[in-house]
């Protein structure tokens, strides 16, 4: 058993880090957030063809698999980059590619000609679909609140529960009867909007089996976990740096055990998260039987650990960490939102409990 990244994976990771450092500094992220315009980062993603990382070459992607995608999301979390478009793309393409013929219709997504949003409420698992949308012939009606990356999307993929699976319907965002009202959540590096449909013309793409929906949802959960891990690692680094500089009673506060033990406990949390995430990524990509539950574990554990990290990082920074000027807030908010995104830790623990056949 060799539990390590390959040389190619390490090269990819370094390349991603370098590109993010060069082109996506925190000053830029702040500017995009303050101007409420994340499109420069969307352009960066298209320019670098990152939407295709983890997508097979014959499907128009860059190749690589889930481990490569997880490395990318960890790096995105580390730099507080506006990663919502990528996650939305993983969801939409993931769903579509598991329905014969459907992926063709969404091909433009990888080239940046189109942007897709998976039309589900951001706080719930995507594999539940949206039962509140009614189908009348080929027209859809209903309201789906808080859809990730709905503002700015050119296409909406609506999964509607139907006999042991999901019916996939594709909408154009600018079609009559489609209205998207932007919503501001705590983390403004990602876009959310309420989708209102009123007899909106849609195209039926086919039926996605339940297990396939679960697998895609697990992949999304895993990538959110990877992103939380990256954000938490950055917060730990910032904290360690700060407590080494901040002097009280004539010594750096980091020399107090109460401080250094807290930092050490964060590291223990994050190393555990790291192992869980990359094992789950391997298990899912190898089709292991425990792949899906391992991704649930990674999501529940990591997003919670990242919130613990955020709280402790804030505490160890003292009042300065509470300010808008300090960069900690960007990562803090990402960790908080990721905990709820695609379903809370409680949701996934409940799924795990069910699979244990507890009564």
């Amino acid at each position, binding site marked *: 058993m060799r539990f390590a990244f390959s040389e190619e994976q390490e090269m990819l990771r370094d390349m991603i880090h370098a590109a993010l450092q060069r082109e996506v500094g925190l000053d830029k992220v702040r500017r995009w957030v303050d101007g409420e315009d994340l499109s420069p980062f969307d352009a960066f993603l298209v320019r670098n063809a990152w939407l295709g990382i983890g997508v097979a070459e014959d499907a128009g992607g860059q190749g690589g698999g889930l481990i490569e995608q997880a490395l990318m999301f960890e790096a995105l979390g580390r730099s507080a980059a506006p990663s919502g478009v990528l996650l939305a793309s993983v969801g939409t393409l993931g769903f579509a590619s598991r329905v014969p013929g459907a992926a063709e219709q969404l091909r433009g997504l990888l080239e940046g000609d189109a942007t897709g949003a998976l039309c589900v409420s951001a706080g719930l698992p995507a594999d539940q679909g949206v039962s509140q949308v009614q189908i009348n012939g080929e027209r859809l009606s209903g309201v789906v609140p808080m859809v990730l990356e709905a503002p700015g999307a050119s296409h909406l993929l609506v999964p509607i529960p139907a006999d042991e699976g999901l019916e996939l319907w594709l909408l154009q965002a600018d079609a009559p009867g489609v209205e998207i009202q932007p919503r501001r959540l705590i983390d403004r590096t990602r876009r959310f909007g309420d989708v209102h449909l009123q007899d909106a013309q849609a195209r039926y793409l086919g039926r996605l089996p339940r297990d396939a929906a679960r697998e895609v949802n697990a992949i999304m959960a895993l990538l959110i976990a990877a992103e939380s891990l990256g954000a938490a690692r950055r917060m730990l680094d910032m904290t360690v740096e700060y407590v080494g500089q901040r002097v009280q009673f004539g010594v750096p506060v980091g020399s*107090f*055990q*109460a401080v250094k*033990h807290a930092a050490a406990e964060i590291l223990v949390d994050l190393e555990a998260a790291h192992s869980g995430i990359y094992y789950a990524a391997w298990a899912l990509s190898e089709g292991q039987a425990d792949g899906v539950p391992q991704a649930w574990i990674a999501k529940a554990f990591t997003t919670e650990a990242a919130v613990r990290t955020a709280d402790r990082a804030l505490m160890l920074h003292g009042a300065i960490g509470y300010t808008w000027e300090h960069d900690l807030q960007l990562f803090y908010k990402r960790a908080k939102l990721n905990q709820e995104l695609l379903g809370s830790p409680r949701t996934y623990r409940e799924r795990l409990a069910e699979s244990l056949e507890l009564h």
Partner: protein
Amino acid sequence: MDFSLNDDQRAIEEAVGTICDAYDDNYWLRAENEKRFPQEFVDDLVKAGWMGVTMPQEYGGAGLGITEAAIIIKRISRLGANASSAVHINMFGPHPVVVFGTPEQKARFLPPLIAGKDRTCFGVTEPNVGLDTTHIKTFAERKGDRYVVHGSKVWISTAQIANKILLVTRTTKFEDAKRPTDGLTLFYTDLDRSKVTVREIPKMGRNAVDSNELFIDGLEIPVEDRIGEEGKGFEYLLHGLNPERVLIAGTNIGAGQAVIDKAAQYAKDRIVFGRPIGKNQGIQHPLADCWIRLQAAETMMFKAASLYDQGKPCGLEANMAKYLGGDAYFESAARAVRTHGGFGYAKEFHVERYYREAIMGLIGPVSHELVLCHIAERALGLPKSY
């Protein structure tokens, strides 16, 4: 609001403390290892008149309140559960007799208890009942001027040496009772060993004071040993629950404070890397944290005791005190062992003895989970969950 002890209360604490101080850690270590009941210690408390603290003065007691009882049991409990359990039941167990007994019964029962001539045990729970008290099966059948009892009891402390038992029975079967809480009847009577087999339960800690299973086969109880009315026993038991919880809080808090004192002393004495280990925040912060929790529990305990002594409702406070005290003791004992490092695991440093006892604070006489149920229902108005 006055949070301080008055002069009398301080004098009580000091007087009890003087007796306790004569019994050092080595005495309790020996008693634990040899599983020997601490009779000398009990005799000293009897001689000084402490057994009757909460019993009425006309029967030889001191007529004091639960506040004073809590002070006493907390001080005794610094010595550990072997000390508190050796006296607890005789000091406070006969509460239903005090409250619901006839003057004739009190005159017959209380003076020998206070004099240490009688020793009682308390038989409530049963093997398949746990905390679901109304489901007890032990049955007392009326036959003329006596009752004949069959059944079994479990977790009965001091039944090896007791000559009396406060016994909870059913006189109407559960299925025949109008309400589940009807049909329980209370007795205070002789523990007739020709009709009651007492089997000791080997256990993890508190080994100087026995815990037992009782098999009752035809125990005859004269009607005059029945406490209160037939069928009203559950009500009488409820009456004693709050003071019991306050006193259990006291046992856990007293033991917790003692074990943290031991840990703090060790942290001052033990030198590693050229300085006392107590200079490390990794050592001193957890001890401070435990101390805070113990103090908070103590404040809650005195609040509950004060309410009870004023005749006011104290169910929430008594349960919270038990919860906070049990939790704080458990954490304190574990922390004391860890502070001692490897030596904490050695019997000669005494903290492991407390560690083995501390888990009882989370289990008995009511589990933490049921305390949470009580608070959820009574403080927050949430529906009953069990």
